[in-house]
């Protein structure tokens, strides 16, 4: 008796959850499907779901016309470079705050977080001015710097919360055994910290990849990443649904896959450790 009601309930909740899940996912699914249609089929009335002539033509056209690979490469370099640079700066900082805390540690952490709250538009002109002055406009190095700086607080915070979980006793024991600071970091700390560093890298790569204020405002042609490449589709000519879909699918596919791996870190990273 009790079992049959719980099974019935499970069927009901499963059905509801899948319906809601598919509804939320629908825009992405529809985009991916449309990317395999011809332009005429893309606007067919009624809409075609699965029974159309699947084609890869749009992908070829997008690559040929707009040199997709160049934008992709820019995205990879900018997101990867800014994350790597951020990690190099943040690991020592987070390490020192987690293991050698001082009276000011909490204030420094909170202050770092507060720089993240600075609205980008408030400093748009000064940053453009500095970019012009140093010939950084439309360069990858300029964007790498800016994205590194806007994500640095999150990187420090994530690493800090991970490092905090490494028990201090282990370090004490290593010190007792006569380990030097260098040995302590290299052989004791690093192996324990690698999972935390890896998830920090993952989440920040995603954030940098999707950043769409500075990447739109500080690039023109040569350093433009995928966010800007897609924005160029906002003033279309003629039939373009299938091509837009192909371009969009290519822009989001890599990060969607990475993102699914980072679900758990996402909560921690974006709430600054306040929700675990």
């Amino acid at each position, binding site marked *: 008796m009790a079992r049959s009601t719980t099974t019935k*309930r*499970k069927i009901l*909740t499963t059905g*509801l*959850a899948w319906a809601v899940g*598919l509804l*939320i*996912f629908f*825009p*992405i699914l*529809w985009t991916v499907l449309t990317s395999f249609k011809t332009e005429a089929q893309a*606007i067919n*009335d*009624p809409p075609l779901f699965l029974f159309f002539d699947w084609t890869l033509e749009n992908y070829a056209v997008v690559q040929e016309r707009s040199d997709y690979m160049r934008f992709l490469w820019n995205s990879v370099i900018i997101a990867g470079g800014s994350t790597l640079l951020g990690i190099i*700066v943040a690991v*020592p*900082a987070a*390490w*020192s*705050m987690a*293991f*050698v805390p*001082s009276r000011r540690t*909490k204030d*420094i952490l*909170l202050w*770092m*977080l*507060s720089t993240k*709250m600075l*609205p980008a*538009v*408030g*400093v*748009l*002109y*000064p940053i453009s001015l*500095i970019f012009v002055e140093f010939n950084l406009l439309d360069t990858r190095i300029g964007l790498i710097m800016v994205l590194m*700086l806007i994500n*640095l607080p999150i990187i*420090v915070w994530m690493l800090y919360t991970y490092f905090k979980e490494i028990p201090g006793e282990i370090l004490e024991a290593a010190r007792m055994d006569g380990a030097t600071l260098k040995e302590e970091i290299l052989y004791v700390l690093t192996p324990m910290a690698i999972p935390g560093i890896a998830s920090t890298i993952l989440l920040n790569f995603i954030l940098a990849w*999707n950043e*769409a*204020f500075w990447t739109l405002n500080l690039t023109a042609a040569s350093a433009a990443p995928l*966010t800007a490449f*897609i*924005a160029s589709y*906002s003033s*279309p000519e003629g039939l*373009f*649904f299938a091509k*837009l*879909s192909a371009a*969009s699918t290519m822009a*989001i596919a890599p990060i969607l896959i990475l*993102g699914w791996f980072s679900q758990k870190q*996402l909560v921690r990273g*974006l*709430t*600054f450790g306040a929700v675990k």
Partner: protein
Amino acid sequence: MATQHSRSAARLMLTPAVVLLLGWMLVPLTLTLFFSFKKYLPMRGDSLDRGLDWVGFANYTRFLSSSSFWPSVQTTLIMVGGVLLITVVLGVLLALLLDQPIWGQGVVRILVIAPFFVMPTVSALVWKNMLMDPVNGILAHLWRFFGAEPVSWLSDASLSSIILIVSWQWLPFATLILLTAVQSLDSEQLEAAEMDGAPVLKRFWHIVLPHLSRAITIVILIQTIFLLSIFAEIFVTTGGAFGTRTLTYLIFQRVIDSQNIGLGSAGGVYAIILANIVAIFLMRIVGKNLDA
């Protein structure tokens, strides 16, 4: 016990991050403040080399008294408020649903979270064209199927459309955080309440909701900070037309389109103040958590 040696080493390791962030904060902020007190119209021949005229608080008063200021504040509040309402209410419901035993839970979770990883320009363009296009969009097909007149979403219901798009992007974030909080709920307490015959709504109101209040607060604060600076979604859909010009977008237009740097900078200072008011509350909560 940290030695003197390790303490100075620690300070050294902290320095690069602090210096970089300090520079990143102070340099642009000082420049914005500086420009906000100057008449600076590069198109009309003002230039840094020849020096700029000091105008006192003229830019600040002009920004406030311009006819587009209050509408933009109103648009910002409606947009942020609308997205918060939708994402928090649906987020709580979704979190409770996903917490139930269901078949294929992992897959459903992935489907629900996916929109968060879609870059803003893509989600805005996909919604604008594939879904909301008044002729060929899915919604137009749906409306015609039910015999209704298709809606020109982004011109006739522009603000609601943008709220819908942004909510779609942020619902996963709210759901994920609230789900994490729901999962830490003490199930014994709930079962005890169920035994005592407390109805579902009562259990939700007296046990679940209070437990979620902290997570909800965090969702609201973090989202507010990101939502106040929504840019790409407006940039590629309406370009600020049809009543979708938020404060952020207004400042962007002053600086980039009309090249009035002084006026735009004064607006920027207002935006910074606004963001800081929200930030103070967020920092309090995060700070408390640090002590715990």
